[in-house]
């Protein structure tokens, strides 16, 4: 079911619209009235010191917080104009559209092929030849195909960390996700692997809307077009990355990016 907001339709320039989002872990309020619009085919970086709610915000965009007991959410997140917090929303379809990449690369202890095919299989979206070509496409999209095409049946656990993280991205691409939520996707990787993942992100941006949480300010500056700075559950400032890093409007943002605290 699609819930359209007044005067907003599929042609909206915002892929994701977060409206007055408040989140409570029990009595503790982790997000304070966060509102922001994320553009399609854009990489948006979320920065801020540890515990400010970046991961919490990210998990709101595909409702992964639902899995945590005693969480309550007020406000809305519209994806393509559809409020994913509406009662009638199809969670399964929504999560297929909004994929998540985790901090630690976490392939299943299955073969490379089975990992990429995982989502397609559980949702019965493809089998046989169609499945194989979807897997190939996805591995090509993350630039793993050439390296791995001869050992698709090898265990995914034997890959390098960087390959594993690419594989996890391929797992989402296979499902034709449109939004990629990445929570510190490079924090387990060395600088060279990090650089290669960043190049991949720049490539993926053409087809996907990407939100990345990062502790690495250089990374945010390098990869993103828009940046949000959070502090204690509040979205302090949000705008073009170049603006945030060159002339932030808020004193607190300036203090953070110049390293005066956090």
């Amino acid at each position, binding site marked *: 079911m699609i819930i359209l907001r007044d005067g907003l339709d599929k042609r909206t320039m915002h892929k994701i619209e977060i409206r007055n989002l408040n989140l409570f872990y029990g009595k503790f309020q982790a997000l304070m009235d966060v509102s922001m619009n994320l553009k399609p085919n854009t990489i948006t970086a979320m920065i801020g010191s540890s515990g400010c709610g970046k991961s919490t915000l990210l998990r709101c965009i595909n409702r*992964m917080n639902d899995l945590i007991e005693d969480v309550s959410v007020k406000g809305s997140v519209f994806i393509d104009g559809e409020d994913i917090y509406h009662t009638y929303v199809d969670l399964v379809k929504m999560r297929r559209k909004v994929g998540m990449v*985790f901090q630690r690369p*976490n392939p*299943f202890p299955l073969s490379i092929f089975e990992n990429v095919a995982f989502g397609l299989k*559980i*949702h019965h979206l493809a089998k046989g030849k169609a499945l194989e070509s979807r897997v190939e496409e996805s591995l090509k999209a993350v630039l793993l195909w050439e390296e791995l095409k001869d050992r698709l049946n090898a265990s995914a*656990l034997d890959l390098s960390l960087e390959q594993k993280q690419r594989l996890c991205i391929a797992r*989402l691409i296979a499902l034709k996700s449109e939004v990629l939520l990445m929570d510190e996707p490079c924090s387990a990787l060395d600088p060279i692997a990090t650089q290669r993942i960043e190049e991949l992100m720049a490539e993926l941006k053409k087809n996907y809307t990407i939100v990345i949480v990062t502790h690495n300010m250089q990374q945010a500056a390098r990869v993103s077009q828009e940046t949000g700075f959070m502090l204690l559950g509040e979205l302090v400032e949000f705008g073009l990355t170049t603006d945030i890093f060159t002339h932030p409007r808020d004193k607190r943002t300036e203090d953070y990016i110049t390293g005066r605290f956090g």
Partner: protein
Amino acid sequence: MNVQIKQKIGFGVLFAATLLVVVPIVAIIGLIITKGWSAISWEFLFSMPKDGMRAGGVFPAIVGTFYLVSGAILFSLPIGVMAAIYLNEYAKDNALTRLINLAIINLAGVSSVVYGLFGLSLFVVFFKFGVSIISGSLTLGIMTLPVIITTTREALRAVPKSFRQVSFSLGATRWQTVRHSVLPFALPGILTGAILSIGRAAGETAPILFTVAAFYVPDLPKSPFDQTMALPYHLYIISTQIPNIREDYRYGTALVLVGLVLIVNISATIVRARYRRKKW
């Protein structure tokens, strides 16, 4: 005192404790083998008892134990695994769940003769199954349930949380997550638990005493409502009820029982070892 000496004493004490555990087991098995080996033959394993059970074989007891254990596991494995899945993957951590957990832990500690009495009053008398394989199997099954639930939960808990997260984030429902991202990786652990409880069920006398075990039946059981002989009970009666029985007959029967349980336990170890390589 010198650290080196302390270290040596500590090591010595621990080693002695280990010996204390191992020596009796080895001694018992050694005794059973030396005294019972001469009785083992094809005839002993595969023929009916003769001469008031002083000669012939223990075949009906082996068959009976096989039926009882199969029936028990057929009942307790699916129920136990489903209960464990519910408790581990679905149940909220509330007072009821904690009560159920407590009950399961305590059930595992209840003495087996109590299960026997319970089986007698529930299956034999109340459900009118009579003294029969089905009553005995169900009683053994209930006795093994806590073990199966506990080992299955252990196995489910060993599956990393991240597998579930990934699965949910790919749009899987809770059941799809359990089915595709948890159970396959918990399977070796679940099987190990099941096999170990087979060993336990095979060796118990008390639960079958009032519910199924027969002193002597001339034929093999034909239906689940027949009585049957069973190895542990057979061992008990030939050791206490039958005068002037050859000693190697008794130890031979014990050897068959211990041997079967040992085979089952070793296969559990093999299952575990085979899958242990798969780390995540």
